């Protein structure tokens, strides 16, 4: 058995080294930098908690944090619920060639990068000459300045993100439903359960572990939303779509205020951890 342990260590060592150096060490470096002033040109200078003091009085950042939370609140439930409903319908009622075709089509936006997705949505949502406003114009609506109005910009950004990711979650839920033992569903059918009852009392509880995973991943990913903002709005107008991740990018890699950006990044980590524990609690609580 000792030999087996040695083999095991041999198997994990190369990977662990890479993890330690490129994944774990940077976390602590960033923590360290968050207490310094560092612009890459001069060596980091220790300034203790000054960055954090600034972080908490930064109105721009406060706005970005609120935006990020709104973004998470729109995208995560929406992509989870829509994906679950669509997957449920496809799996339960449209389990044929057409259903599988639709499933394949719904997945396609996931293949596109956020850059490609944002590029085309930018054209579609353009205030003048954009496809959406042209179509709405036929019905005498608009034109709406989708990305230029702070009231609609963040919602548009969130919806584009949902558009891009919903196919991914649909596939997972679909597979989850198909995994539910057929006999369970048929038993429910024989018992005379309505479709709604079957959905609420069989599908949803059985999908709980998958939902938990999807919500967890969704929250972690959504809190880091960068690509879509960078490409679609650049954080504007009037900071209405800037997210924490976007701000970190701007501070760190446009202004090269590494220390300050690190403090914001640490703050983001703290927020994600808090939300994660709250969410964990919520899921566990529901089980009782």
């Amino acid at each position: 058995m000792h030999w087996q342990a040695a083999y095991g260590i041999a198997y994990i060592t190369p990977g662990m080294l890479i993890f330690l150096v490129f994944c774990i060490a940077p976390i602590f470096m960033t923590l360290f930098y968050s207490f310094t002033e560092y612009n890459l040109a001069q060596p980091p200078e220790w300034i203790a908690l000054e960055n954090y003091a600034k972080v908490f009085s930064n109105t721009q950042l406060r706005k970005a944090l609120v935006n990020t939370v709104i973004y998470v609140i729109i995208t995560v439930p929406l992509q989870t619920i829509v994906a679950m409903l669509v997957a449920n319908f496809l799996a339960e009622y449209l389990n044929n060639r057409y259903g599988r075709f639709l499933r394949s089509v719904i997945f396609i936006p996931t293949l596109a990068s956020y850059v490609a997705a944002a590029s085309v949505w930018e054209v579609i949502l353009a205030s003048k000459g954009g496809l959406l406003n042209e179509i709405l114009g036929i019905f005498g609506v608009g034109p709406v300045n989708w990305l230029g109005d702070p009231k609609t910009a963040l919602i548009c950004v969130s919806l584009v993100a949902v558009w891009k990711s919903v196919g991914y979650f649909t596939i997972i839920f679909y597979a989850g439903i198909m995994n539910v033992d057929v006999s369970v569903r048929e038993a429910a059918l024989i018992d005379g359960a309505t479709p709604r009852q079957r959905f609420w009392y069989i599908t949803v509880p059985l999908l709980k572990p998958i939902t938990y995973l999807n919500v967890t991943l969704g929250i972690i990913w959504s809190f880091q939303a960068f690509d879509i903002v960078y490409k679609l709005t650049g954080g504007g107008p009037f900071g209405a779509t800037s997210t924490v991740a976007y701000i970190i990018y701007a501070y760190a890699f446009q202004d090269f205020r590494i220390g300050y950006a690190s403090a914001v990044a640490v703050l983001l980590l703290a927020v994600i951890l808090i939300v994660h524990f709250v969410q964990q609690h919520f899921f566990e609580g529901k089980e009782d």
Partner: protein
Amino acid sequence: MIRRERRSWRFVVGVVFVTLFALLCIIPLVYMVLVSFADTTTMYIRWEDIQLFDFFNYRYLFENRNFGRPILNSLIVVVISVIAVDLLSCTMAYGFAKKPIPGKKWVFNLVLATMMIPTQVVFISLYVMMRQWHLLNTYIALVIPLIGAFGVFMMRQFIRGVPNDFIEAAQIDGCSELRIFTRIILPMVKPARITLAVFTFNSAWNALLWPLIAATKNEMQTLTVATSSLTSYFATNYGPPMAAATLSFLVPFILYCFMQKQFVEGIALGGVKG
């Protein structure tokens, strides 16, 4: 299987809704492809501006903007990262799943915990590190952040499912340790490895933030970054950016057409089992 609902109005409404939903998913991308054939200088894209099968916007990308290079870069990054992730994830996962390493639960949880860390936290210092080691603008720098805990976690789930009897039987037969790994474990988790390859491919091909900061030189730009930097150039001419977006979309799309089963089953496997 559930025939009774077939004819109900609920069913019809459902089919219509799901069909509309699928259309909503696909129309923007069809529009993207159409506009990539348009020669416009205005915000207004007229249908008569669209000349299908006239590839002038694409020709422009290759002739004037040297798009061959970013495509090549992206392909290189994808190939290296798929191989690297597969290799590291499988070896680590095997160690964690089947070997009695002291304290492995702790170490594994440490690896797992990195999935919670926002990429920005890592990227700031990773950038500083890469710069000091003169690795910026290299393929190594572009590949490294693609190695993540997810692959290890997923592969561990699958390798755990390989019955110990197989391994013990092979040991009794005198199989070497390496042989057990390469001849028994790896083939048995092949579907999962393909899934992982698909995941890695997708994230490598579509990554924006890290290539944006780690590859400052034109010749090291990936396709995603090149596409992104193109749009800011042509605010009024939507043709070239849409052509670039179409190109970047095309490679995963073609792969999806040929390997749909692996994509869908892979993601389902990863999501349901993981």
